[in-house]
């Protein structure tokens, strides 16, 4: 919320739901040319960032475009692997898993909210929310029950059979939030969740996210001050590094 909290509340090793330690994500574009041209320089999208987030905490990753917010979010959610450093999610190092294992890890432990909602247009709101439960192999009755319950929790109990095309942007994002909670994950990552919404609608969506997050860890990447203002703590990034440089001796800020 405020600057004081932002630098003082990184959780300890034992209480963190997700922890990134000395994270580096380097992208290399192409190789050296046939005629001795130099290879293009590698880009360090994330450069030595350590971060830890505990349950019940909403952390905002702030920074301008190109500062590495989304890349850090991908690493924490197990969507990508760091070039160096480790991400510990649900007690395990994400690098220990192959793609299938990380998909399962995300399914069970991470809820994802996208900037552009990414609901399947052919399916109803309820079917969209129930998607992760399909992968879990839940029976249909259980899927319907859980999805309806979540849609009611985000204030869309009267829209369960509506397709995304018949919902407003704010409603679609609330459906996406409900979907992110379907498997009761420990961590919710949201990449610019208000990026496609007007400020009033964005406020409602963030309020819904805060209401349903309960004791889950929420990481929100945004350059929207309104979105960052609702976070318990913010981690500013600049050029792939933490701009607050608040790491303590063990490098985690804990």
């Amino acid at each position, binding site marked *: 919320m405020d600057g004081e909290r932002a630098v003082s509340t990184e959780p300890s090793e034992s209480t963190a739901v997700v922890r990134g330690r000395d994270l580096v994500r380097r992208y290399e574009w192409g190789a050296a040319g046939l005629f001795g041209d130099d290879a293009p320089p590698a880009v360090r999208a994330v450069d030595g960032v350590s971060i830890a987030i505990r349950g019940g905490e909403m952390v905002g990753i702030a920074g301008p475009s190109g500062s590495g917010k*989304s890349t850090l*979010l*991908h690493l924490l*959610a197990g*969507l*990508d692997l760091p070039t160096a450093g480790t991400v510990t999610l649900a007690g395990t190092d994400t690098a220990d898993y192959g*793609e*299938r294992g990380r*998909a*399962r890890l*995300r*399914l*069970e432990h*991470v*809820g*994802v909210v*996208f*900037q*552009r909602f*990414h609901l*399947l*247009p*052919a*399916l109803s709101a309820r*079917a969209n929310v129930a*998607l*992760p439960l*399909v*992968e*879990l*192999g839940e*029976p*249909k009755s259980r*899927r319907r029950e859980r999805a309806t319950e979540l849609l009611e929790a985000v204030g869309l109990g009267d829209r369960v059979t509506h*397709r995304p*095309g018949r919902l407003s942007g704010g409603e679609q994002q609330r459906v996406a939030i409900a*979907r*992110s909670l379907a*498997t009761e994950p420990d961590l919710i990552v949201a*990449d610019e969740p208000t990026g496609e919404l007007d400020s009033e609608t964005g406020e409602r969506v963030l309020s819904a996210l805060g209401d349903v997050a309960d004791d889950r860890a929420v990481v929100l990447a945004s350059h929207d001050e309104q979105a960052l203002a609702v976070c318990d703590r913010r981690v500013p990034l600049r050029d792939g590094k933490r701009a607050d440089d608040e790491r303590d001796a063990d490098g985690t800020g804990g």
Partner: protein
Amino acid sequence: MGFRRLGALAALAVRRVLGRFRTSPARVSMSTVGVALAVGLMVSVTAISLGLASESVVASEETDYWIVPEESNVQSLAVSTGSVQLGDVHRASAHIGADDRVEYAVPVLLELVPVADAVTGEREYVLVAGVVSRPEAELLGLSLRPLTPGDPHYANGSYDGPRTGEAILNEAGATSLNASAGTTLESPRAPNRSFSVVNVSAGGTSTAFGTVPVAVVHLSELQAVTGSAAGDQADQILVSTDDRSVRGSLERSYPRTTVVRSNGLAAQRVSTSNLPLAIAVSGAATAVLVGVLFVATLMGLAVSGDSESLGALAAIGLSRRSRSVLVAVETVTVAVLGGACGLVLGMLGIVAINGAGRATLGLEPVATFDPLLVGLAAGVALLIGVLGAVYPVLLSRRTSPLEVLSR
């Protein structure tokens, strides 16, 4: 992957496909139309091949079963003679006919025989059918009533019984030979064995090329002309019965023969006849090729266009295998929908082909519908779906969840 998850993913895929007809119908409709055209074409072509194959059938409404040689290679009616034959047919037919459940069993020998024109003496080829006559039976559209019942010349295999020399002609035969009732017919193949026309009938059998000149005579008398008497040979045995349980007995009565029900004869002929089989196989192969190219290309484009959704599914935890199942079932669903439309198109095609043939050339139905075509269309559509799914599935496997989060 558990059954429940597989079922749920399949249901999801079907809903996505049906939903696309509402939300973004262009590609999915094009894919469906592509398969429909391919399957429709195949159904029409196969119906024509069935029509061609049916021409070799010595059919009548009273006939319920045909016993034909297992390796029969009968083609169209015009070239159906000279194929693998059954032997000892008089005794076998009598044995089958002795069964209380069988109304009658008639052996039939088909031969193209040169017959001298009654006026000019010119040689004309006539399809001659040799039968053991039954007054109640009908052959090639001609009633056998005018022939003396039985086969007197056979005389228990001695071929020294009284020779009737009776022949029934259809109108096409009478016209081409300038013959009428009472005319004597002679064949250059057996100058001393003439036949006398006892009746000219309006019936007959037609092909796509018009009505065939047909003569029906006693079996043993035809065998004597063509040299088939040695093994008492014939092409097929027609069986009339009201009792379906007789089929088992028929199958046991002759080793290395095939017993075909009347409604399965055309399809059986397609499977054992070179020309119709070649047409049918070409039709199916073309349909599969065209269908697969259509479906693979358009569903591939659909997958590329839908990479954001697939990436989102990957991001929320759907495994690569689940996404592959989703795309594969979607492709198969499109192909099956196309197959159903194609079947309807094909049936309309059959009606159109037959209508055009009748209106322009006065031909009898050229294309024949068989219930088997429904199964064939479904099978080909399924095959198109399965083969066409390979490319979209490979494309979908390259989708990364990072693609959507970055947008």
